[in-house]
């Protein structure tokens, strides 16, 4: 996907002025935050399970080499074809080659964020193949010509009214306002595509090494149809998605759906192992799995490695005060919110996403709710350090920080400067004790600055101490 993270500030400011977006995001926050909070109460040892999930993911990441080969062996033994792609371009080319070999004219897709990374739809369409997103949210944004703004709710930035208008225009049918009716309409439009597609593409929530299975977690049933109806199926998955056993998958699922939507379990869990066998009633005739690096081994070898534990639940963004107000698009690439603020610079380069790790209050709400304990604020802080080390911050910021540590490490200088700062600030604050304009304007555009009270603590304490001595 084209990287627009450099325009974060402008895009965020624009979104702050969009009342429809705020309404949509407030809805999401209510549903997802409340849902998660009540559903984790069903687990009487939530924190233990969370620690276990972290360890399962860490084990898998520590043994990727072995597990991926085990996965490949088992998938092949069940009749699947396994491909390895080092780059996004290779993924697209592999998919196109498979499509060409099978004379594919139409593809249906269930959600794949990796497909967004590689811009798969545009690539296939440019090659003359029709591509249909079938997840309702993905379908909406495909119709609207947009990109996802959330990991699991890609069209969350749109209100019901906006979607009603979009359907009315693109479907050329009488306007519906009821969500159920709108969904039925999309379903009616999509149904013929399921029946006529030559190929299905899905992502993978997990790859299971012991069985060679690719599995997806969905709520709408489109994923099941995408993986079973067309004669060719292609699953694309990052190397970090592998887990050793089915037991591990079921363990992690206890946290995934609860953290994501507050569901004890999703409506569908689809496990695909190999193509259709002679006695099977359905399933693809050919089943391909593309295992993708696209920057992941580089992250694995770095100090951002913990980010690869991510199981794509979206809880970090649902709980992020910044995301809750600007939505996902300003982050400018595939993954928004706190996890995006770490993965984006890790995958596309520090210099291409300078704002992302800085645009966080480090409130650690994300770290607290992450089901696999990714220390997101710590990773954002590491990225900030790397920016400073590589000289990527503006000169005035670096100079300001240097000046601060210089002064604060010299108590005499510091006492002098703060004494005069307190006096001057008190004076400017005037009778109501508020400063309404500060240099740079950053603070005071939307806020006053409560003025200092005139004396520093240091001075008050010193005079108190000398008074005590006199007594």
């Amino acid at each position, binding site marked *: 996907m084209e990287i627009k993270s450099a325009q974060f*500030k402008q895009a*965020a400011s624009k979104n*702050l002025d969009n009342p429809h977006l705020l309404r949509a995001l407030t809805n999401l926050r209510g549903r997802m935050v409340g849902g998660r909070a009540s559903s984790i109460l069903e687990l009487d040892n939530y924190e233990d399970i969370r620690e276990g999930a972290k360890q399962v993911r860490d084990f898998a990441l520590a043994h990727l080499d072995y597990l991926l080969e085990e996965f490949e062996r088992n998938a092949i033994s069940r009749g699947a074809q396994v491909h390895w792609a080092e780059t996004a371009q290779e993924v697209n080319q592999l998919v196109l080659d498979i499509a060409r070999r099978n004379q594919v004219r139409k593809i249906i897709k269930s959600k794949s964020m990796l497909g967004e990374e590689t811009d798969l739809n545009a690539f296939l369409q440019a090659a003359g193949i029709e591509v249909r997103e079938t997840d309702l949210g993905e379908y909406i944004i495909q119709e609207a010509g947009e990109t996802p703004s959330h990991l699991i709710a890609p069209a969350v930035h749109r209100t019901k009214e906006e979607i009603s208008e979009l359907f009315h225009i693109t479907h050329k049918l009488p306007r519906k306002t009821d969500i159920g009716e709108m969904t039925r309409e999309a379903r009616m439009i999509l149904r013929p595509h399921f029946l006529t597609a030559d190929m299905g593409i899905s992502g993978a929530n997990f790859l299971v090494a012991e069985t060679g299975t690719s599995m997806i977690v969905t709520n709408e049933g489109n994923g099941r149809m995408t993986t079973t109806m067309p004669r060719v199926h292609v699953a694309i998955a990052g190397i970090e998605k592998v887990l050793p056993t089915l037991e591990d998958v079921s363990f992690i699922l206890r946290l995934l759906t609860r953290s994501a939507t507050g569901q004890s379990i999703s409506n569908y869990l689809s496990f695909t192992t190999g193509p259709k066998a002679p006695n099977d009633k359905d399933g693809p005739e050919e089943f391909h799995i593309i295992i993708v690096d696209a920057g992941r081994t580089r992250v694995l070898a770095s100090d951002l490695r913990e980010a690869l534990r991510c199981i794509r639940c979206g809880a970090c963004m649902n709980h992020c*005060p*910044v995301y809750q*107000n*600007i939505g996902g698009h300003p982050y400018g690439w595939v993954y928004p919110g706190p996890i995006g603020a770490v993965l984006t610079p890790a995958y596309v380069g520090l210099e291409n996403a300078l704002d992302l790790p*800085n*645009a*966080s*209050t*480090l*409130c*650690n*709400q994300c*770290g607290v709710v992450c089901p696999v304990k990714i220390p997101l604020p*710590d990773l954002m*802080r590491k990225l*900030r*350090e*790397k*920016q*400073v080390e590589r000289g990527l*911050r503006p000169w005035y*910021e*670096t100079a300001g*920080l240097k000046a*601060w*540590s210089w002064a*604060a*490490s010299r*108590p005499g200088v*510091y006492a002098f400067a*703060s004494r005069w*700062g*307190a006096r001057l600030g008190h004076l400017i604050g005037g009778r*109501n004790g*508020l400063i*309404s304009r500060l240099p*740079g*304007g*950053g*603070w*005071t*555009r*939307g*806020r*006053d*600055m*409560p*003025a*200092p*009270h005139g*004396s*520093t*603590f*240091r001075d*008050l*304490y010193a005079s*108190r101490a000398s008074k005590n001595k006199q007594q």
Partner: protein
Amino acid sequence: MQVGLFVTCLVDLFRPRIGLAAIKLLEDAGCEVIVPTSQTCCGQPGYNSGDRKGAQLLARKLLREFADCVYVVSPSGSCAGMIKAHYAELLAEFPELKPEVDSLTARTWELTDFLINVLKLKAVPGTFAGTVTYHDSCSGLRELGVKSQPRALLSCVQGLTIKEMATPEQCCGFGGTFSIKYEDISTRIADQKCSDIEQSAADAVVLGDLGCMLNIEGRLRRRGDTRTRVLHVAEVLGGMTEDQA
């Protein structure tokens, strides 16, 4: 019991009576309070802005200044959190300092946490005629588990009633330099905090961190709210909600 007070740079500059209130609370409880006069900043601004070297300089300075204190107490969740939750990582390049860092980490407390869990305080001198709502500052809450301590202490204040806002654990949008780098996002988050505070209809919002205090008070006043007071928990507990003449 000997306690070193880490005042914090923001209290020193903006609202010194918070430091005096902290001393009063600690002395009333029988502590001998020591205030190392060379103290300045814990290094958090640099640490959170990527200036690791500058932060290390200030952390090592603080380490020396409080080396002899039995306890180190600070009227700030984020500064105490900086020491307790981050110094070990920040100073990891200096393995020779590890014993000192571990010792400081174990000795450091946020003020209300210390009053409740070390001093077992059951009574406070402050009185307050009215209702207050408590804002849980992020670092205190999520790094140190400061949640019930300030509420337990506030409930000892004569005349005071606690009225919770809807989402007291939601960030106020301050985030240090974030508040200036992304002022519009920061202001929006602060605005939501202000609405939450106003809906509680409390006479004052009480909190434990100066950063949140400046942010929340600054936004409340700009919104035209001159009624709701913004007070540090130490001021309320110590009965020092006004400057002394």
